[in-house]
């Protein structure tokens, strides 16, 4: 860890301005990801702008739906009664992640920015394009059990490791951000990006942009009954997903009115595909129909050796998650 200076942000705008003028400054919220990366010298900010005292930890109703303040903790969000009742998929996804201690510290905003868990990204002794652009990707020919099978590129096959974000993608959340030059709203699908030839960029935000809140759309409440978050991992808790599925169905009797399926652990962003979801529109909840969705979502998937099993695993997990959702099993 290098030496750095520290300041406590007083207002969103000034904090954004501070980071826009200093390219080696970084925001810090719960610190559960950033501090680890600093200890490993992966991140070396010279200045930390602490967001935690900004008044952004509320969870409140708006005319759009439910608004999660960026500084609301993962724990407070997951156990918030309104979230539990109207967006139980989100509660379940959050609680499938990390540990109780981490969720108490981790913020909703920080969760969006958590970086990949690719082993090479964490280890300065090995080349990694995401950490050091142009140095090469060690994972492609190395140990890639935790890496992606969809939307990968020749320069990076990393995944976004979040559970929370998979549910947010399925719920079509929107993200409100404020930068040095003003405010804007980003669709969740446009928040994260694929690695392409710029794997050092995880998302489409500018460094000075602060996430102030996340909006859960009111119509997301339709999925409060038939949903599941299925997380497959190497131990029963405290492990990142090998594959996870957020499945949500808006059902009319036995007929599916609308389906949402997002995958975690397989790509540089939560993986959704509208055409795959549309396959279920007006259809019955049958295994065959679910298998078609799985096949469509995994179209073009590519394995790299130690992660090739994820292709088959993801297909089975999709079918299982949709079956559970249709049966009202969470």
């Amino acid at each position, binding site marked *: *860890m*290098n*030496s750095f200076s520290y300041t406590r942000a007083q207002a969103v705008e000034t904090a954004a301005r501070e980071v826009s003028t200093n390219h080696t400054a970084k925001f810090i919220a719960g610190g559960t990801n950033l501090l680890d990366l600093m200890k*490993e*010298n992966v991140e070396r900010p010279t200045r930390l702008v602490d967001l935690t005292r900004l008044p952004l930890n509320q969870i409140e109703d708006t005319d759009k739906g439910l608004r999660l303040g960026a500084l609301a903790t993962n724990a407070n969000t997951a156990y918030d009664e309104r979230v539990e009742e109207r967006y139980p998929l989100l509660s379940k996804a959050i609680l499938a992640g990390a540990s109780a201690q981490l969720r108490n510290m981790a913020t909703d905003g920080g969760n969006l920015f958590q970086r990949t*868990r690719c*082993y*090479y990204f*964490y*280890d*300065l*002794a*090995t080349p990694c394009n995401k950490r050091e652009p142009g140095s090469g990707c*060690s994972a492609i*020919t*190395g*140990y890639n*059990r*935790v890496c992606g099978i969809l939307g990968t590129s020749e320069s990076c096959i990393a995944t976004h490791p979040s559970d929370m974000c998979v549910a947010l993608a399925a719920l079509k959340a929107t993200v409100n951000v404020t930068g040095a030059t003003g405010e804007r709203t980003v669709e969740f699908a446009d928040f994260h990006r694929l690695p392409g030839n710029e794997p050092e960029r995880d998302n489409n935000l500018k460094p000075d942009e602060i996430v102030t809140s996340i909006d859960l759309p009111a119509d997301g409440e339709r999925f409060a009954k038939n949903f599941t978050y299925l997380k*497959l991992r*190497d*131990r*029963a*808790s*405290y*492990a*990142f997903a*090998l594959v996870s599925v957020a499945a949500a169905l808006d059902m009319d009797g036995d007929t599916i009115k609308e389906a949402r399926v997002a995958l975690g652990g397989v790509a540089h962003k939560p993986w959704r595909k509208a055409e795959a979801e549309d396959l279920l529109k007006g259809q019955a909840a049958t295994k065959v129909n679910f298998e078609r969705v799985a096949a469509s979502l995994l179209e073009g998937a590519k394995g790299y050796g130690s992660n090739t*099993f994820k292709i*088959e*695993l993801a297909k*089975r*997990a999709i*079918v*299982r998650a949709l079956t559970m959702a249709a049966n009202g099993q969470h």
Partner: protein
Amino acid sequence: MAATTYIGRSTSRVDGRAKVTGEAKYAAEFNTPGLTYGYVISSDIAKGKITKIDASDALSLPGVLQVFTHENAPRPAYFDRKFKDDDSPVGDKFKPLYSAEIQFSMQPIGLVVADSFEVARYAASLVKVEYKAETPETNLRQKPKGHKAPTGKTGFTPPKSRGNAAKAYKNAEVQFEAEYFHMPEHHNPMEMFASTVIVEEDGKLKIYDKTQGVANSQKYITKIFGLSKEEARVINPFMGGGFGSGLRPQYQLYLAVMAARELNRSVRVVLTRQQMFSFGHRPATLQTVSLGATKDGMLQAIKHEALGETSRFEEYTEVVVNWAGMLYHCDNVELGYYLRNLDTYTPLDMRAPGSVTGIAAFETAIDELSYKVGIDPLELRLKNYAEKNEFEGKPFSSKELRACYAQGAAKFGWAKRPAQPRSMREGTKLIGWGVATGMWDAQQQKSAAKANLSVDGKLVVGSSTSDIGTGTYTAMTMIAAETLGLPLDAVTFKLGDTTLPVAPLEGGSWTVASVGSAVKEACEAVAKKVFSMAKDVKDSPLSGASFDEVEFVDGKVQLKGDYSSGVSIVEAMRAGEVNFIEEETTTMPNMLKQMQYARNTHSAVFVEVEVDEDLGQICVRRVVSAIAGGRVISPKTARSQILGGVVWGISMALEEESVLDHHFGRFMNHNLAEYHVAVNADIHNIDVIFVEEHDDIVNPLGAKGLGEIGIVGVAAAIGNAIYHATGKRVRELPITLDKLL
């Protein structure tokens, strides 16, 4: 039963309060004014040479005292043997900062010393190192050709063959052969390796070191630096887990002492979690088991061959295959054990070394054979039960394995097991039951102890042994208190200090047997003195008695069973006009008697798993572990040891592996987020049964040691249960979900 009878009765840890309140201090927690902090720089490459090392930026940071590298560090001892320790394998020793050569990934190549930890850590990141890298070889399976293992290491008995296994195998009615493999694993105790070296005013060193043997660390340091024992005292009162990793002095000890002497300052060096992957580990091992049997399941031939990994500089060996010659009755046995040198650090004993992996493979093969011959796996084991140790041709000092099978099976409900795989299911979950046998050694080593009883009835007992979390403090306190008939809180047991009488390394499950026997003997020596004083008390009811006729209970010495006849210890000592009685004894195992017997602990492990049919997720729902381990001294800590062993067995079967990237020759999951050990949510019902086992041969206490047996057999039982659930045999550990898809 007298109030001062403790052995066999549940007692909470005597050090429990100190541990949960933080009063118990560990090697990295001892402070002294003016302490400096060392931070280790680790090599990026696994093989090659350092061509350039530039520490100028680091040295220019305020607070940095020195950056030691091979270019400027002292080389206090030239000869390899000076670097030898009590657990050294055959071979050259690794000598930190002696040369530019890199022999393994994350090799320590520098030590930054600064007046704060943060500055030292930052400075370490500023040291620029250039290498000339060579291609490392770390893949045991790539060219699986090894050489015969040397037999120099204490404790390693070369496997002997008997009969003609090749011929018997060829002629057998039923033949079975398979290959098994497991990856390296790291010990990963909670506490990081650390040494705090305090330079005292007279120049002597007081060293707090994380170790399973303070005497071993002291010997190592004094030999290398040419110091006397008085000049280097080593202390380690508590240990946050060892599992074998502390059986050898680790490099932070050498570096801290070296820096302290060079700078004449007190120095602390603590390794990072990542650096905990830079030294000893359980070696990757490739095994082949061949079994020949009659149609009705009588073993005719056993062949077990293992290829283990070791470093280029030391020949680490462990007892992997010998168990195959001891577990069952069979006239034709052929065993082979080979090593292959790779560009990694030397492996290191890890809980039940060799046995836990050798038996994992062998007990899987036995299970596979049971399906081939169509006999219940438990019945097959009973059919081939070994009445004596056929490997050494000796009777067992005691072996209640049959009782383990019977009591374990009854508790588990084994009789209801359907023979066919895939015959139990609940929804999408397939259920399976498996069994395996475990075996470990019951050893006793030479050990010394000192007991000091003062006239106020307080007893202080000491021995340089350590408590690696196993409950040594508690067991020794119980033994001492019972021997002298004192309340537990009148007894203080001291350990982990080289000023105390010498005990062996804390390993091999021999501590209770060895140190416990010494504690008992020292306390008995004190008791004899008390007795002779008690006889001289005016009108003593004991005047005509011999020592054999009396007992020490409830603070007094009395005729056996006669509560009216006692003389209190205090009264006796007053009469004898002494303020204290001190006795030091060295207890040797009765080799002549012990040599005639094979001395082992045994276990039977029963497991129920559920496996998701589509998704491969595995859950170990139930484990019954029945243990034959001699006399149980401290039931509570004993049970904890077995529980911990079972938990680790689950972890080993399903989760643990140190992932190597062979391109870099580097362990890549070097942190506890990615090196998975079992978490609470993975652990469900575990039942521990201690079967009655009387043994007066192993040692005077009749205790066999329980630190290791608990983990042995668990992985095989789980794999066997998974097969029973799914019909899929996985011959590679850990059994992760992808292997079941």
